[in-house]
Structure formats: C-alpha cells, structure tokens
C-alpha cells in the first residue's frame, strides 16, 4: 500500500501515444468494465457504513440465488440446482465475508473494489490448482463476485457518472459501453494497460481529441484514484508522482499546446498555398471509419489513404462481409463528398485470412501479402472490389493497390475489377462504372517500373515507410539497425524524384502517404522534388499547413536539387539544416514545431 505522507519518487512509464497532447489531472481508476468497478479511497468515518453496505448486498445476493434455486428446481429438478447451491454457500461463506470486510477497513476501499480484489485473489489461488476440472470452478467465484458487485452498483452508483472534474481515466482496457457515457468535459486523458493504435480507447480518444497513452503495462496496479498523473500523448509517456519541476515543465507545455490549438482553429480554413502561390493538397490518412471526425476537425482536403485492412480488426466474424464493407465505404463516401477518398485494398498477410494449409512465414513483410494475397485468394478481393464499386456510386472513391512489384499484377487486378463491374451490371446492382485505379509505389521494383506502371494506372501513391525499408534494406523494428532507416538518405530522395518525374511525364497525379508527409523538414524536400499532394495523420495537418504557407516553392526546389547531388545522409541533413535559415525564421519555427 502506498503511504500518503511519504513522497514517492517520480516514475515514468512508457506506452503507445495514440492521441497527442499533454494532460495533467487526477487518476480515476476504472476497473474491469464488465463489473464497472471503480476504486474509491474512503475516509475512516465512512468505513463502517461501507461494510454494512457490503453485508446488505451479500444478503440481497443470497436472496437472489435462493430464488434462482427454487426456479431451477421447479423447472429442471434439484440435481441441476447444485451449482447454484455452491454459489449460495460461497455467498454465505464467513471466510470470504471476513476477508472482504477486512479489505475495506485496511485499504479504505469501497465495497465493489474490495469484493473484486478479494475474489480476484481467490481466483489466482484457484488458478494454481492442477486439476483442470477443479480449476474451472474459478468461473463460479467470478459469477458470485459479479452478482454482488452488480447489486452494489445498482444501489449506489459509484460509476463514471460521479466522475470528478479534471480526471484521467486509468484502466486495463476501456470497453465501448464505458466510454459511450463519458462526460468529455470532465475527462482530460486516457491511460490503459493494454491496447494499440487501433484499440477502442485510441479511436475514441482521437475522435474527441483527448490525449491518450495505451499499452502501459501494469498501470492499474501502480496508480491510485486521486493521484496526480501527467500524460504526454505525443511521446507515449505517463508520469506518476511528478516532481515540482516536471509539473511546471508540463504545465507550460500544456499552455503552449492550448495556444497552438487556438492558432490551429483560426488557421484551419486558410488555404495551403506557398508564398509564391502554389497550392499544395493536404489530405488525411484514415484507419477507421470512426476517425472521420478528425478529418473534419483539421479540414483535410479528402482522404488520401484509407487502410481498409483495419476492417478485419472490427469484423464480427473475423472476416468483413460484403455488406459490412459496403456500409463502411458508403459512410466514407458520404463524409468526404467531392474531395474523395482513396481506398487501399487489403494490405494483409496470409495469417489474417485463416487460409487452410497456410504456413506461417519466416519473413511476412516480403511474403504473401497485399496484392499478392488478393490475387491468389481472388474471392476475398472480388468481395472487396464489389463493395467499393457499389459504394462508389454514392461518392468519389478510388481504388489503390498495395505492394505492387510487377505491372502484370496491375493488369490482373484491372481484369478482375472489370469482371466484377460486368457482374454487378448483369445483376442490376447500382455501382460506379468508371473508378480510378491507383498503384502504391513502395518497393524499389515499382520505382524502377514507374513509367510502365503509370501507363496501367490513374494515379500513384508513394508509401515512403515501406519504400525506405526496402530501398535501404533496414528493418525499422530491429533496434540494431533502426537508426539506418533514414528518409534523408540520398537514395531515398533520388527514388522519390524518379517517381515524381515519371508521374509528371505520364501526366498522372502522385500523392505521398508515408510518414515523410507529416514531417515539416522532410515535406520541404518532398515539395522540392515535385510533389504537391500529401496525405498524413490528421493531427499533423495544422503544422504542415503552416509550413506550406511560410515557404516559397522555388526555395524548396533549390534545396532539393542540391540535396540530390549530395552523397551521404549526413551531408543532406547538414545541407538542409544550414539552409533552413535562408528560408526564413517563420519556417524554422514551423519546422521545429514538428
């Protein structure tokens, strides 16, 4: 138990920042959402009444079970009531009752939390029983605990409705039902023990724009309700027991961000035009339909990349049906209107499709994935194309093929798309007859074949993340070499230039959808290399808009031209750094802000 007088050292925990920004607030622990148990620290004078509250609930639970036993006996015979008899005995068990009451007293805990904690401990003990059948009785204990907790919370709501102002919600995971009835005015941030970029908490956080860090292991054991917590959603850091210096630092940082947010709002309607009058298109990368709110908040000019494979993480049956996909694409089409949205077809590995006889790959990043998988498991691809074509009748949707290495892949995909169109026409199903087809340029082979690919397609999308990895032969996830992943490598710049030139020559548009498009310094180079259409995570749009408005395209072109002639990444970096000054102080500020 943590002492309240002793000052604990500051503790920094790392997780995944899923919505940027700083929040400073009081931790509010939400337990297992199934029981919606919240931990409350009670003053001494309330402990006895809390114990009585527990006893009342335990008695009520017993009465419930007795009624259930009667019902089951009457309906099925007394043999079937025995599990319930066991539940009743558990509720009457004095050992359990004493433990719970003791927990309330010692820990100043509310009854719900005490019930959960004590039964959880029992469950752990049962978990060690070797006999599988006996071990399974744990579920009976869970049942009994839920029954008491339900009665407790029904009688006296200690739920999220009682949330104090300035709360930071801390939980292992937040379920939709919990986040659905949150009061966003009272919640400053989210921290969860599990989850990733696309977990429910992350999506909610981004859609309401509240700083959030997920995947902070063991967070619920390390923080207590009411304690001051700082979260930095940009860095993915959670700070417990912050020192006065840390508190001051983050208070100032928060102030700076608030000021920035005001500028962002003021500037969101401003056109993304350079000082010498060239318009740059800033679009949004979207993973999930629910995130479309952020698209509007940052005033993106359409969706440059919709990563459709995330439908797999949400599909009820594990595999999104045509109708599920159609609904998602239809929604997307309606939201983006004339600005349009680019749907990248599933960039999945074979493991996701649960194919029979599919063996795990040693190196799935260059294995059976994306367009390769789509062409080898045609029905899945056809279903997706059908759904897109149907939805495209309601708005401007384009199709983008990921991981293309061979012109033939594009030709085969086009054949299938044409065939699906014929089929839809013969079935009399409304669909779009002329959809644009794009090719993702993200492997060196596609760069080399850019002109030929341009002949077969309507637009390019430059995926810089994968391209840099394969071009420089660097696995970003490998700590030994991740520092070699370098967007400023001259080889990367030259490859981008080749693609940009090929697209210009063949007169097709090219969009950049990798992380380079959200980095202000790298954006200067991209513009200088001839790119005019950038797609990025929506929250990056304000900074890039500011950058675009503060430079001359001619300067960026001169900078890039020189960078192309240099022979090492270090030389490129040095060159860019020294010339940022020439491009004006505003630009420098904008670049450094990113």
């Amino acid at each position, binding site marked *: 138990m943590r002492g309240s007088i002793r000052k604990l050292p500051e503790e920094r925990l790392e997780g995944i920042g899923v919505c940027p920004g700083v929040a400073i607030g009081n931790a509010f622990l939400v337990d297992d959402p199934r029981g919606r148990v919240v931990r409350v620290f009670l003053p001494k004078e309330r402990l006895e009444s809390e114990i009585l509250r527990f006893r009342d609930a335990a008695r009520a639970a017993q009465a419930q079970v007795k009624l259930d036993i009667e019902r089951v006996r009457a309906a099925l015979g007394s043999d079937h009531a*025995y599990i319930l008899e066991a539940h009743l005995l558990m509720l009457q*068990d004095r050992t359990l009752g004493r433990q719970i009451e003791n927990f309330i007293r010692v820990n100043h805990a509310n009854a719900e939390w005490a019930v959960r904690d004590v039964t959880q401990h029992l469950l752990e003990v*049962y978990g060690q*029983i070797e006999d599988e059948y*006996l071990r399974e*009785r744990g579920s*009976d204990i869970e049942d009994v605990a839920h029954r008491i907790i339900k009665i407790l919370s029904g009688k006296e709501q200690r739920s999220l409705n009682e949330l104090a102002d300035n709360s930071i919600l801390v939980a292992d995971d937040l379920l939709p039902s919990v986040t659905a009835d949150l009061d966003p005015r009272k919640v400053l941030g989210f921290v969860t023990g599990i989850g990733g970029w696309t977990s429910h908490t992350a999506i909610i956080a981004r859609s309401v724009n509240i700083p959030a860090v997920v995947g902070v292991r063991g967070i619920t054991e390390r923080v207590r309700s009411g304690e001051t917590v700082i979260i930095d959603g940009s860095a993915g850091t959670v700070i417990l027991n912050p020192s006065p210096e840390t508190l001051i630092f983050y208070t100032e940082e928060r102030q700076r961000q608030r000021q920035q947010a005001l500028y962002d709002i003021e500037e969101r309607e401003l056109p993304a035009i350079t000082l010498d009058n060239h318009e740059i298109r800033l679009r949004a990368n979207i993973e999930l339909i629910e995130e479309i709110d952020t698209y509007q908040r940052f005033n993106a000019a359409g969706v440059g990349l919709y990563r459709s494979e995330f439908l797999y993480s949400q599909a009820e049956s594990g595999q999104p049906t045509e109708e599920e996909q159609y609904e998602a694409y239809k929604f997307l089409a309606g939201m983006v209107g004339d600005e349009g949205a680019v749907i990248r077809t599933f960039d999945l590995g074979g493991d996701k499709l649960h194919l029979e006889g599919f063996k795990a790959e040693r190196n799935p990043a260059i294995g059976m994935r994306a367009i390769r998988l789509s062409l080898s498991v045609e029905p899945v691809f056809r279903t997706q194309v059908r759904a897109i074509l149907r939805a495209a009748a309601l708005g401007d949707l384009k199709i983008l093929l990921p991981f293309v290495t061979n012109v033939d892949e594009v030709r085969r995909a086009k054949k299938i798309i044409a065939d699906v169109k014929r089929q839809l026409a013969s079935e009399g199903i409304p669909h779009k007859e002329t959809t644009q087809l794009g090719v993702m340029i993200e492997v060196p082979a596609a760069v080399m074949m850019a002109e030929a690919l341009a002949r077969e397609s309507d637009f390019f999308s430059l995926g810089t993340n994968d391209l840099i990895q394969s071009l420089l032969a660097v696995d970003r996830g490998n700590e030994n070499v991740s520092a070699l992943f370098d967007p400023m490598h001259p080889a990367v710049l030259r490859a981008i230039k080749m693609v940009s030139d090929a697209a210009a020559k063949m007169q097709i548009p090219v969009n950049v959808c990798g992380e380079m498009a959200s980095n202000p310094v790298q954006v200067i180079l991209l513009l200088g290399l001839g790119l005019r259409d950038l797609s990025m995570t929506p929250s990056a749009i304000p900074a890039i808009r500011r950058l675009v408005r503060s430079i001359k395209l001619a300067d960026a072109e001169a900078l890039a031209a020189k960078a192309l002639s240099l022979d090492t990444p270090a030389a490129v970096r040095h060159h860019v750094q020294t010339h940022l000054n020439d491009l004006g102080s505003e630009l420098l500020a904008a670049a450094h802000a990113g």
Partner: protein
Amino acid sequence: MQKRTVTITNRLGLHARAAAKLVKLAASHKSRVTLARAEALQHTADAKSIFSVLLLAATQNTLIEITVEGPDEELAMDALCRLIAEKFGEE
C-alpha cells in the same frame, strides 16, 4: 474428538457440486469439522467453508483426514464418511 482418513473415490473429486454437498452436511452439525490432505496435515480446511474445501483441490483417490470435535461428533463423522463413500450420490 474423532479422526478418520478416507479416500475420495468419485471421478470428479471435490468439485463444486460435491463440495457444496459436503459443506451443507458439515454445516448441519454443531461440531467443528476440519479436513486435511493426508500428505499435508498442517494445512487444514474448514469443512463449513466452501472456499476452504474447494482449495483442498482433492481429486479422485486423494486421501483426506477428517477431524470432528463437538457435541454431535460421532453423528457428523458417520454422515460425512457415508457421503464420501457414496461418491456424493454422483455415480
């Protein structure tokens, strides 16, 4: 005080249903009833607490020592041994 060692013979051992029967039977007597696995006599279980009994994790063929102490100890011991011998009425 009465002491007797018996073998759990029903197939599923002292699982929830069997434990419930045993606890109910023990609780219907005034005497104090404790159980222990024959190989770990220092860990006694209160036969009137279902959690305690379940934690014995007594599977089929486990040897259990029953200790009964109180006004109705003989009666209680006989009843408990009968229940166990009859495999809790399960088979």
